[in-house]
């Protein structure tokens, strides 16, 4: 009983602090830690930063997660880095600005600042909350996996299989083709890829729609968006994603953000995540689905 009293006391002291709403930063400025990130330069509490002992879990049991392995990155028989594994993180969630170099801010055009100011008043309109895809380079709380398809001579496609949001995949053409001259805009765009010095997977993507938000700050982009991702497995358990973003419709210059993905624990696999199945988001908070007719 005494312990329960102590518990209640600590909780009473702690909850008001934890319950504070994060203050919205100025458009383009890195968000605070509470906004979260996926291993961006600006910190945040991504899965990769979890302590060795994972969360206290079901049935009162602790799940002991193995430390992220730090051995050399595995290689394919031809020497190319092997990206196989289940990964968590690797992109923004709370704020894309968290992936910038320290002291840098997003080169937002005035129009983009206006969009962010507007979106700050309707944060629940974020398409991601309504089971829409996250686009690029946004990350999710769920893992992903690279899957390469080969002929006997060479790779043809790379797929990035995402558990969430909505059990989706990206298709990257690895056969040397170019982007088509004209594209219909899509959530994940048209991607071509290649390995740079057998160390880094480069993914060049155009043809995006302008519907997804880069992050919960509502950082916008246009259909002129062009992303260049450079995925480097720096060691067995760590994958670095340097993303250069060009979008003259939203930003005054290209900029690069850097993120880290961590290898999931042994035995973990992609699970089913059909977001549309029973999404009751909005009811508890009284928010309307902006995509409902």
């Amino acid at each position: 009983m005494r312990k329960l009293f102590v518990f209640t006391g600590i909780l009473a002291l702690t909850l008001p602090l934890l319950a504070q709403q994060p203050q919205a930063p100025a458009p383009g400025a890195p968000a605070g830690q509470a906004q979260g990130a996926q291993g961006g330069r600006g910190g945040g509490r991504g899965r990769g930063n979890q302590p060795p002992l994972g969360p206290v879990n079901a049935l009162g049991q602790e799940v002991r997660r193995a430390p992220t392995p730090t051995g050399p990155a595995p290689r394919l028989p031809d020497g190319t880095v092997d990206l196989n594994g289940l990964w968590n993180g690797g992109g923004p969630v709370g704020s894309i600005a968290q992936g910038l170099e320290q002291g840098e801010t997003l080169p937002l055009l005035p129009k983009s600042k206006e969009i962010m100011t507007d979106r700050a008043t309707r944060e629940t309109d974020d398409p991601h909350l309504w089971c829409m895809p996250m686009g690029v380079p946004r990350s999710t709380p769920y893992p992903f996996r690279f899957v390469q398809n080969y002929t006997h001579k060479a790779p043809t496609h790379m797929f990035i299989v995402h558990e969430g949001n909505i059990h989706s995949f990206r298709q990257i053409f690895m056969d040397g083709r170019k982007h088509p001259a004209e594209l219909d805009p899509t959530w994940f765009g048209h991607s071509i890829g290649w390995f740079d010095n057998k160390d880094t997977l480069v993914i060049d993507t155009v043809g995006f729609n302008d519907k997804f938000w880069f992050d919960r700050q509502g950082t916008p982009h246009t259909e002129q968006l062009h992303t260049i991702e450079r995925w480097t497995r720096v060691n067995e358990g760590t994958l670095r994603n340097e993303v250069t973003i060009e979008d003259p419709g939203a930003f005054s210059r290209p900029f690069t953000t850097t993120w880290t993905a961590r290898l999931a624990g042994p035995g973990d696999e992609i699970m089913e995540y059909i977001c549309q199945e029973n999404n009751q988001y909005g009811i508890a908070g009284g928010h309307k689905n902006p995509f409902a007719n």
Partner: protein
Amino acid sequence: MKGKLGVLVACLSLLGSGAGLVAHHSFSTEYDGAKTFKLTGAVSKVEWTNPHVRFYVDVVEDGKTETWNMELASPSALARNGWTSRTLKVGDKVTVEGYAAKVAPNRGNARSVITADGRSLFAGAADDNAPGGGGNQ
């Protein structure tokens, strides 16, 4: 007491580690971190569905039954932490602590579930600034 101690350990460990389960929805847009509840009733339905697992608890008060809709993490997040679709069963008597919805009645973000046989189930539904929740991943 045993169950309460389990909740104590779970909550304190979470607060200390910053760890928690994850979801793609923001806690703060749906639930009130200052509006806690603790209620006891019988599980009337379990929805092992995306994006959030939900279970419903019939709470009897003054002879009147009210059904609460309790939100948990996603099935995949719960499964990675030891839950299965059979962890909670219809008919189980449970005591649930959590945070109430901002506007909708009888909806809660469950943070701990204690069954009548003393099992203490950490729930964890949310992400970013959920009290006792983990990082926003």
